[in-house]
């Protein structure tokens, strides 16, 4: 049995078909469908939000007809979502704030997923001392508490959105790594892997072409979760005052309203960023859960 007869195109076609089937299945779950809709609008806001914003979120002051600064005004025709205590337009801040939130989520999630997937794959496939070293490394990141360490690092270096993304991925990769490794451990002993080796496929080829495709769904799942975790972590850091000071993110908006002591009155300032973050993180998990039902055969019992 030669593996060479399977061309790249065949491979891509089967993977494509699988993805399509799974996608259709996920979309048949009503909760996941809502989640997908929320995510699509979020990505739209992240890409076009700053262009749609009627004002500059930080530079422009909102004034009434007499030219007085509108401080902490509720929603009106001038500012549909009201103004901040500094007289800035909240709608514009909300629209512009989607982008940094999307960037951290997307790249933090991808970084988490890819790094964790590779570590888990290599660790599980090779076993032995490679596994021992990599797993002790994951133990180490598990034993370093994320929040305090991130706060510590961010006090000494000026937080930038990319640095925050790197720190988040640097802490979160351990989650997919452990799960992917456990999965690879069971796959390694299966016949198709052994026959690939026996028919002359090298370690790298066996690992990436025969083992990896079977754990890819879990990799996707944890990349998606990584997106939600990264958004939550970045928002939390921003809320504690350790966000990128140059951008308006949803987390930073919440920091501003909390810090200025206006939570009590300015609901129009609190709700847009708070609901935005909550909707996005919840959606990711709703989609993830529906997907998990498909790829985890053990919870797929007849209903």
């Amino acid at each position, binding site marked *: 049995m030669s593996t060479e007869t399977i061309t790249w195109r065949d491979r891509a076609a089967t993977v494509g078909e699988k993805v399509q089937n799974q996608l259709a299945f996920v979309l048949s779950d009503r909760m996941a469908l809502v989640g997908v809709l929320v995510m699509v609008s979020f990505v739209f806001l992240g890409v076009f939000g700053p262009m749609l914003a009627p004002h500059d979120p930080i530079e422009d002051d909102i004034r009434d007809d007499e030219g007085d600064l509108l401080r902490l005004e509720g929603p009106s025709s001038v500012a549909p979502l009201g103004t901040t205590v500094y007289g800035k337009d909240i709608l514009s801040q909300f629209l512009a704030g989607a982008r940094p939130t999307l960037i951290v989520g997307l790249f933090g999630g991808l970084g988490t997923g890819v790094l964790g997937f590779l570590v888990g794959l290599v660790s599980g496939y090779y076993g032995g001392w490679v596994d021992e070293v990599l797993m002790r490394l994951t133990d180490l990141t598990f034993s370093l*508490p994320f929040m*305090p360490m991130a706060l*510590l690092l961010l006090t000494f270096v000026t937080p930038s959105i990319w640095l925050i993304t790197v720190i988040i991925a640097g802490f979160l990769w351990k989650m997919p790594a452990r799960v992917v490794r456990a999965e690879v451990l069971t796959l390694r002993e299966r016949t198709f892997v052994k026959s690939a080796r026996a028919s002359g496929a090298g370690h790298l080829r066996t690992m990436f072409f025969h083992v990896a495709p079977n754990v890819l769904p879990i990799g996707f799942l944890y990349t998606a979760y990584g997106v939600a975790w990264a958004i939550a972590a970045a928002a*939390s850091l921003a809320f*504690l005052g350790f966000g990128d000071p140059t951008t308006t993110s949803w987390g930073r908006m919440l920091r501003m309203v909390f810090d200025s002591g206006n939570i009590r009155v300015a609901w129009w300032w609190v709700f847009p960023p708070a609901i935005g973050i*909550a909707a996005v993180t919840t959606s990711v*998990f709703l989609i993830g*859960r529906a997907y998990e039902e498909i790829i985890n055969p053990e919870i797929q019992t007849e209903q």
Partner: protein
Amino acid sequence: MSDFQRFLAKRIGIAIGLTLIAVTIIFVVLRMLPGSPFESLITAGNLTQGQVDEIMALYGLDKPIWQQYLIYLRNILTFQFGYSILQSQPVWDILAPKLANTLILLVPALVTTAVVSTLLGMYVGWNRGSKAETASIIGTTFLRSTPVFITAIFFVIIFSYTLDLVPAFGMRSITATPDGLLDTYMSMDFLHHYILPFTVTVLFYSGDFLLLARNGVVEKKGSEFLKLHRAKGLSENEQLMRAGRNSMLPVITYFALRLGMIFQGLILLEVVFAWPGIGRALVLAIQQQDYPLVQASVFIMALAVIIMNLVADVLYAYFDPTVSVSGGGA
């Protein structure tokens, strides 16, 4: 030595190694990165060189770095955290009451949520496809995936500001001057402040336990031993209890893991509710660059994680006969 003892010895060894590495990282981060807290003191220019040397000597900063490291290791591993720079008090005297405040909030909340959500999870897992299942999954997914400070803010807005039922922040009224332990933690005033952060904590952690228990029961539902129980004529509830008991393992180990992450997870809650716990103390200490305090609180949090990871591993190996204690190896 039995297999289990050998496994135990190995895990304890690893935990000690991790503690040393964690402690070293804290040292490196705090000393090597630019901008030591004393720099601002010195560049402020109000001190003579003699006074500067005196302060540096007091904190051992005049010695070579490796000596500083050894002294630091000895001190921190024997829980001698030194003096707070800003509050001129022993760090431990500052942190101990904060630690107590954190634990008094979190341990009862975690126990409550573990018991209640696990039972609920077993119930909805058994009744798969019911409305209760859908509702509980949406609800807990929202609660566990939303950053906890946002949930907390929603709750403060609803229950404190709108309905005016409970105070929005603090652990006691400003006028209260409790005296003694009983008075501090058992008064109505304390309870009044306690209920909101407690509820949010319970809700935040409910999702994980609920889903673990649900998946456990769903997985067990089709299994052979349940068919036997059904054939024996046990009622639905009796069957559920047996399915539930067999899916307890992940819940127990998860509980241990959560207990370890307890401090760090709730830094945000403590900040929103102005709860005088160790997480809020850490944030304040970082802002004020009071680094003996920072170092001690990060160390305590890391140690809690390491110890509870160890406990979770050991519990898992002890209770699950299918886990090979000789390690996963080839």
